[in-house]
């Protein structure tokens, strides 16, 4: 099939007004805020060496923080601020999505603007400054009508750099709940939809290029003292912003379904959104949310519903180290959630637990059936897991229960782990029980006789504001207890198919057909 006749291009295009609009809005807001802060600071600091050094130093340090981390840090910070403001001033604000993204990106934009503004202003010849004074200008008049216009070309170069950085980094604001062109990239990476990844990258690059060229037009216009060119560039920027504002004003939907950053979550959120729409409710999916962000987003009502896993909440959210039997754990979890106003609507019927996984043939050859069997041979083996597993309590618990010790530990992208263990590149992986690749590669999940890993039942959670919402409950009720591990594995396998039938929407439709059959 021709690459460009792939229907996923069309699907990607359908998301463009929403994703691009949000991307431009968050970038423009961040850049505007960054300029509003950086320009006055640069003007004040230019003749104060100590302040100038401190400012540039701070801005440089910010620049060394990876974009993803900077964005993620703003979420808990704002969450704390919001609760303080609610307590003291009686109003809170959403620490989700737009606000943290704008603040983090604005901070990110500061260095080039600060540096170039200071350099530009300090580069104005002393004889010109003296002339400005000599013809009778006040300090402010000299700044506004002589220094700033002369520094403007250098300043514009800094603003261009900042704009390109902000537009590029804004793709990383998806995990903190801000829709952006990053939605394509995060969703595409998780569902092996390379069309989406490519589309997101190209769209972000084109946007950055377009904005850079329009700003370049303004810069050249200023240098050549051509108002026409500068005006044309300004007009282009204004048109871009206006064009992306139009579609977004249109529809805000009633229900927001959240999804974390892996394929199963994309499928389940698509499934829930489809059920809501089938019940005549309007629903959108908010995908690619960080694991730590999504629960708070639900508590704050930024999203209405999502699927989490009992063990994840137990360990990560409520920090309980004791691992209890399944039913007991669920019952206790339900009360803990209720204390925060969150409704546990029910279990979907399958478990997505961590499990130590290895090729079936190899396990049989080595007589390994459980983790206890594995422990004896582990010192000669290597293990691979996702980026968080080795710092999770489950790993600690496993090591203590079985005295596990491996020759080597590696971290890798979850999608690549299964192929790695199947090919023998690593001996064991910490996989997910619902992953379809376990069947595909003929792998086996080792037993956990000492119950070191807590149960991970998939559960549907409702936001406090939706606790008494019969329409929502009845729309989602048909899913409860209906998705078994075999169905979910197959759905996950389909979602990782990398073809046109593997979009979360299509897989969700397949899954619904499968479970709706009597």
């Amino acid at each position, binding site marked *: 099939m021709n690459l460009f006749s792939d229907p996923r291009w069309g699907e990607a295009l359908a998301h463009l007004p929403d994703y691009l609009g949000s991307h431009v809005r968050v970038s423009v807001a961040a850049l505007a805020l960054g300029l509003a802060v950086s320009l006055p600071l640069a003007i004040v600091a230019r003749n104060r060496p100590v302040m100038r050094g401190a400012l540039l130093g701070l801005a440089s340090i910010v620049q060394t923080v990876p974009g993803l981390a900077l964005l993620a840090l703003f979420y808990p910070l704002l969450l704390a601020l919001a609760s303080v403001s609610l307590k003291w001033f009686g109003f809170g604000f959403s620490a989700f999505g737009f606000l943290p993204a704008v603040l983090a990106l604005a901070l990110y934009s500061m260095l080039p603007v600060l540096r170039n503004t200071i350099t530009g202003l300090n580069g104005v010849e002393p004889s010109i400054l003296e*002339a400005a004074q000599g*013809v009778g200008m006040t300090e402010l008049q000299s700044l506004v009508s002589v220094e700033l216009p002369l520094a403007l070309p250098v300043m514009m170069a800094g603003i261009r750099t900042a704009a390109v950085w902000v537009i590029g980094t804004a793709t990383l604001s998806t995990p903190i709940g801000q829709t952006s062109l990053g939605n394509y990239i995060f969703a595409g990476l998780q569902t092996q939809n390379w069309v989406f990844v490519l589309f997101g990258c190209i769209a972000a690059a084109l946007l950055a290029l377009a904005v850079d060229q329009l700003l370049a037009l303004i810069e050249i216009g200023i240098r050549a*003292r051509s108002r026409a060119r500068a005006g044309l560039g300004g007009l282009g920027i204004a048109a871009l912003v206006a064009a992306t504002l139009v579609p977004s004003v249109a529809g805000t939907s009633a229900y927001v379904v959240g999804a974390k950053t892996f394929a199963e979550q994309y499928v389940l959120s698509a499934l829930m959104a489809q059920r809501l729409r089938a019940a005549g409710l309007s629903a959108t999916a908010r995908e690619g949310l960080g694991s730590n962000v999504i629960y708070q987003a639900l508590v704050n009502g930024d999203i209405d519903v999502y699927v989490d896993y009992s063990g994840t909440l137990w360990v990560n959210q409520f920090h309980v180290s004791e691992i209890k039997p399944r039913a007991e754990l669920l019952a206790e979890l339900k009360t803990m959630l209720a204390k925060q106003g969150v409704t546990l609507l029910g279990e979907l019927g399958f478990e997505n637990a961590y499990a130590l996984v290895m090729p079936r043939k190899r396990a049989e050859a080595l007589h390994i059936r459980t983790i206890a069997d594995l422990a004896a041979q582990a010192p000669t083996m290597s293990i691979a897991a996702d980026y968080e597993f080795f710092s999770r309590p489950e790993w600690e618990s496993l090591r203590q229960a079985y005295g596990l010790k491996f020759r080597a530990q590696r971290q890798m992208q979850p999608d690549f782990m299964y192929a790695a263990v199947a090919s023998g590149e690593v001996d064991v992986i910490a996989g997910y029980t619902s992953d379809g690749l376990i069947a595909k590669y003929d792998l086996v999940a080792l037993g956990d006789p000492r119950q070191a890993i807590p149960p991970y039942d998939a559960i549907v959670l409702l936001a406090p504001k939706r606790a008494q919402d019969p329409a929502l409950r009845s729309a989602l009720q048909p899913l409860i207890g209906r998705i078994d591990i075999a169905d979910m594995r197959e759905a996950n396998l389909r979602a990782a198919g990398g073809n046109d039938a593997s979009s979360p929407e299509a897989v969700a439709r397949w899954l619904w057909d499968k479970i709706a059959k009597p």
Partner: protein
Amino acid sequence: MNKAKRSNRMQNAPPIAFAHVGKSFDGGRGAERVLAVDDVSLEVGKGEFLCIVGGSGSGKTTLLRLANRLIDADTGEVRIEGEDVRAADPVALRRRIGYVFQSGGLFPHMSVGANIGITPKLLNLPAPEIASRVDELLDLVRLDRALHGNRFPHELSGGQRQRVGVARALAARPKIVLMDEPFGALDPLTRDALGDDYRALHRKLELTTVMITHDMTEAILLADRIAVMRAGRLLAQGTAAELSQSQDSYVIELLRTPRRQTERLNILLPQDGAA
């Protein structure tokens, strides 16, 4: 009554008067303070054209800047039209004193017209009035209205730039003009022409002019009176004829160059007896 008395006194007061003025600068890390202007007393009469002559570091530019408060004196008193400059608002003071800068000091991002009209604009004059004033000034400094008004400084020759600098200094109709080596960087022909043109303007507009130069010949040819500075001190002042009687070795040395040049020129250039 009081006011009338004051304005009367001001009318009779010299336009510029320095009385025992001193100014020192920080010599940099650890170095001693440098006395740039040392106890200078000097008056410039109404309508007078005074040249201050001296080498670099003689303090002549510092003295000029003290007059419109580009810098402030440490000691002594500077009076403009009888008023102590320390009591004046420096910005307002600078707007009523024309200043021509060494290298022109034109704003590179403004057209010739905008450069000339800057001080009237700062004084909030209406735009049409500024426009006609700019045209008038272009005529005055013998630049073509249509040809030069909309150009930018980098499109002009050095001489044209200095003409614009003079026009800008005259834009707000000042009675006093301060010039800091205005023609120093020009070729001799242009310099001569500009000097003559300015001298004519000085007379026509009844200006009081203080001009700095390191060139004694230029000073003798243009000025009514010459002040000689060296190492921050005022060595001598007077007409060219008066200076030629001076016993000061530095003044004699300064006058030697134009004298020798005159002799050489008299020998080398055949006299045109018919003229």
